[in-house]
């Protein structure tokens, strides 16, 4: 009887078609990405240890394949490694493997690195790299030959203190990428904490001599920086005159987008334990902090939260940029719907985001269309900042799962994590996160940087088989990265729209290309690009090939 049952079971199992999972984990031995982050964790538990690292997905050598850059810890006032810890720049070989080219590229900052922001600040067609860190930050200029040069000293960018997320965007629409550098709290005291002022408060069995990561609320807020790109490789700190410096916060995440459709890029900054900022750009001259008035500064109940990862996108396709902010456990994350009148409503309860994230802490995240159905989905990379949280037995764990929400249309989101592959059953100390198409199949893959561990690379299996159009936009009159461009596309009569945001996630940089999903349509009607100011040029293309990447150069067409 047992034998018969076993046999039947075997027959049944073999008769089932093989299930294709949405995302498949690629192991280091397969990809060659063997780098491991060192979080510099010490007995004294200095807070910067808990936040790192960031990651970038970008094409540093313009070979058409997305490369990877991972940030590491390094020498600073509270950490003195015997040998400098390696950062990692991996060149994509185009065959599913990567080669470590860090040394050759000249990226060895020995900086206590936090995150990375990528942008072509000098418009030479090659992506430059800004690495944020504790104590100082570094601007690397891409030499167009596979190497980088540290130009921080001559750039005018001096961001002391604790820099976290940064974003390249053109705030004054002069066609050049400016740089916002978020600053976390004033940590100059290097204060260490006992159990009483730790992240979770009381803990049974904690000794008086034991140190824990401090709750950030005990540190004073500080001002962030905005650097104007002067166009000659030099930047000027305009934080004060633009109003950015007037708002002291504890910035962890930043995304540049145009929330009021006035053609000027605004900034949404998530702050830890103080109000989030919505810097509304007033004609490229001033930023007006309108977080409270817009309803995105606090929770619905008027409480400050621990804002970490952020993003912006028109997720419900109503023509207005919506916002997302991740927080720590018990606070729930927020999906803010833009009402189009300067205010936002939090849809997290109605969309299931609140219940799914109640026990999670979110860092890297991204609005993206992982199945190319033309609708904006959402991925969240989570992990609790305090590695002792499991000892507190609050039901919250240090390692946490990834969450994937599928956009079902009409503003509805479905938690698709359970059916998205074994990697979504795992738990990670996720921090930085970047989405990017590593194998150029048109489906975004995922790169998760974990604190004190190896990165997690998840390849998108292109399950849906939906068609797509890949775009690499290069501004000529407008900023080189085309940040702020509005892309519209029509397929089978359905029109979609997307604003090319800048930044987002947490201390990380996504693949700068845009993939336009067209669902099960088999042909594209048209694609329209409205280049950001000062150009404002609108170009329409009807002959873009499906399922391929195309480069569009402003005013010069498809290349």
């Amino acid at each position: 009887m047992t034998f018969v049952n076993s046999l039947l079971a075997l027959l049944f199992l073999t008769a089932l078609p093989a299930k294709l999972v949405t995302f498949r984990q690629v192991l280091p031995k397969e990809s060659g990405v063997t780098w491991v982050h060192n979080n510099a964790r010490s007995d004294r538990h200095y807070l910067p240890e808990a936040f790192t690292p960031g990651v970038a997905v970008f094409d540093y050598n313009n070979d058409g394949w997305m490369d990877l850059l991972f940030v590491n810890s390094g020498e600073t006032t509270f950490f003195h490694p015997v040998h400098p810890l390696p950062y990692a720049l991996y060149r994509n070989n185009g065959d599913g493997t990567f080669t470590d080219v860090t040394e050759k590229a000249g990226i060895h900052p020995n900086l206590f690195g936090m995150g990375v922001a990528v942008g072509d600040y000098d418009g030479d067609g090659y992506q430059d790299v800004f690495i944020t860190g504790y104590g100082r930050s570094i601007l690397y200029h891409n030499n167009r030959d596979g190497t980088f040069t540290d130009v921080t000293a001559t750039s005018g960018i001096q961001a002391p203190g604790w820099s976290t997320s940064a974003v390249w965007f053109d705030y004054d629409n002069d066609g050049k990428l400016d740089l916002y550098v978020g600053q976390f709290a004033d940590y100059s005291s290097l204060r260490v904490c006992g159990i009483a002022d730790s992240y979770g408060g009381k803990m049974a069995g904690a000794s008086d001599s034991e140190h824990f990561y401090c709750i950030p609320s005990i540190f004073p807020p500080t001002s962030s920086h905005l650097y104007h790109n002067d166009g000659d490789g030099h930047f000027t700190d305009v934080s004060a005159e633009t109003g950015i410096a007037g708002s002291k916060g504890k910035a962890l995440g930043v995304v540049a987008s145009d929330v009021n459709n006035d053609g000027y890029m605004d900034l949404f900054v998530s702050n830890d334990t103080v109000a989030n900022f919505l810097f509304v750009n007033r004609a490229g001259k001033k930023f007006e902090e309108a977080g409270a008035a817009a309803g995105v500064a606090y929770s619905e109940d008027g409480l400050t939260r621990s804002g970490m990862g952020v993003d912006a996108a028109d997720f419900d396709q109503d023509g207005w940029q919506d916002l997302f902010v991740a927080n720590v456990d018990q606070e729930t994350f927020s999906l803010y719907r833009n009402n189009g009148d300067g205010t936002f409503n939090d849809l997290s309860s109605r969309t299931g985001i609140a219940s799914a994230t109640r026990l999670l802490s979110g860092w890297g995240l991204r609005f993206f269309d992982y199945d190319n159905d033309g609708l904006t989905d959402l991925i969240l990379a989570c992990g609790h900042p305090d590695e002792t949280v499991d000892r507190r037995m609050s039901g919250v764990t240090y390692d946490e799962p990834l969450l994937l929400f599928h956009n079902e249309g009409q503003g509805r989101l479905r938690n698709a994590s359970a059916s998205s592959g074994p990697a979504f059953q795992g738990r990670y100390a996720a921090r930085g996160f970047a989405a990017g198409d590593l194998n150029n199949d048109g489906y975004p893959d995922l790169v998760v940087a974990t604190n004190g561990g190896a990165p997690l690379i998840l390849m998108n299996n292109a399950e849906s088989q939906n068609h797509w159009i890949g775009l690499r936009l290069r501004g000529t009159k407008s900023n080189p990265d085309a940040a702020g461009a509005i892309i519209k596309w029509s397929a089978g009569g359905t029109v979609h729209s997307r604003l090319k945001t800048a930044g987002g996630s947490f201390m990380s940089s996504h693949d700068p290309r845009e993939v336009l999903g067209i669902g099960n349509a088999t042909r594209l009607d048209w694609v329209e690009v409205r280049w950001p100011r000062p150009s404002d040029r609108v170009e329409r293309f009807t002959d873009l090939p499906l399922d391929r990447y195309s480069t569009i150069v402003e005013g010069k067409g498809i290349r």
Partner: protein
Amino acid sequence: MRRPLTPAGRQRSAQTVDDPRRPQLIDKSDFRYIGSVFASRLVLALALLQGTVPAERQSDAIQQDIQAGRLRDARQKLQQAIRSSPQDAALWTRLGEVEVRLKDDQAAIAAFERVRSLTPGDARTYFNLGLLYMEQGNTGRALEMYSRGLKLDPEDEAANQNYALLLTQAGRPCEAVNPLQKLKGMKSADLPVRVSLIEAQLKCGNEEAGRRELDEFRQLPSVTVEDQIKLAQVLVQDHLVEAAESTLEYVVQASPDLAEAHANLGSLLLDKGDFEEAARQLGQAVQLAPTSAEYSMELAQVLLKAGQYPTALEFLKAVKDQFGTLPEYQYKLAWSYYGLGQVPQAAAQLEALAQQHPELDRAHYSLGNCYVALGQLEKAEMQYRKAIALDSNRGSYHSAIGQVLRKQGKVGEAIIELEKGLQLEPSDMESRVQLAICYQQRAELPKAERLLEAAVQKQPNLLNAHRVLAQVYYGEGKKAQGDRESDLVSKLDSEETRRRAQMMDSPAPQTFQ
């Protein structure tokens, strides 16, 4: 002092009289004590004095009527007699007694007042009047009568007792000390007097004298351990926590094997927030009396309040065979799951509890809270509705459902519930803020503004109210006020940062209490 496992309601002592509010025609020596936690605590001597009229002067007919219970006839005859002899104090006194028995307190007072005017040197008339005025709720007049009577007869035991009690009840413990000390001199072994004196001294702020009385009490040969525990319970009721604690500590030291003493001390420490010591004491009580559901549940309560959820869960699992069927056990088990962040398990536990005991409003309410935590707002709403159907007088229930309705976008219904919650608990600022948020969402900004302004006026440091108020002002186009609130928020935030920098503590979860 310990919480009952059954729904709230203090058990009455076996010595409680039928209706202590009515004066009774009883012998002066027949004291009746109103039961409290301390069963023999000093209480009113409910004796209306008699015997003021010499028997030979009474009409036989009147006497016969009274004895036969023909009170109205007796009254009529007395009134006739008084018409002939209006200055006869004895007749007025008898009439007053008859009026008391006829439950006509006003007429009785009038009669005794007449007696007082005729025989102003008779202390007993004052005492009778004192008792009657007290019955009328006229404490001031009652105190006056006792005071004047005691000047005439300072040694009257019952009068001193009632006077002291009245003073205590009137919140004048310092004045009660003197009559109580007199009583103590009269009957030094009387425990109710001793207890009342300890209370009066301590309430009056005479710490040293109070401690002395406490020490004396402990040394009395007739005082048992049970008496000391009862004393501690009385002191807890009086909010004389330190004295209660020292009393219980004394008992615990003297009788380390007495579970009740450990349990009482543990409960007291729990109320004080000294969870660690409370858990130690209750742990000992449980060890000494492992079959006591009350002690075990109290120990679980301490662990839960202290946020020691793993230990609470472990303990509850260990005593499951003994107490697993108790609603209190199931509730606490759910609480421990909730504290551990295992909200689905907590919800499952509460679902079972609510099914077995659908009459427990608290189970439905907490289940609603679990559903909120799980983001299942419709289910939460249903449970809150059940809780409200069982007890519609709890502001917290209306506030909870109001918040859930708001999150579901049912703002109109939310407003109704939050307003009910506020009516029941006007001091609940959170409900006020939530109501304001509702009005804000309905774009009824002036209403929101009024509510929030009132909230911040009552609680100027209510940060979230200021934050929402700032948004409301901005929404109304009142930029200056919005900026003012924003500045205030920044200031309060900075203060909060400084405060947290000095001391950080994590609040206990509010969902279960």
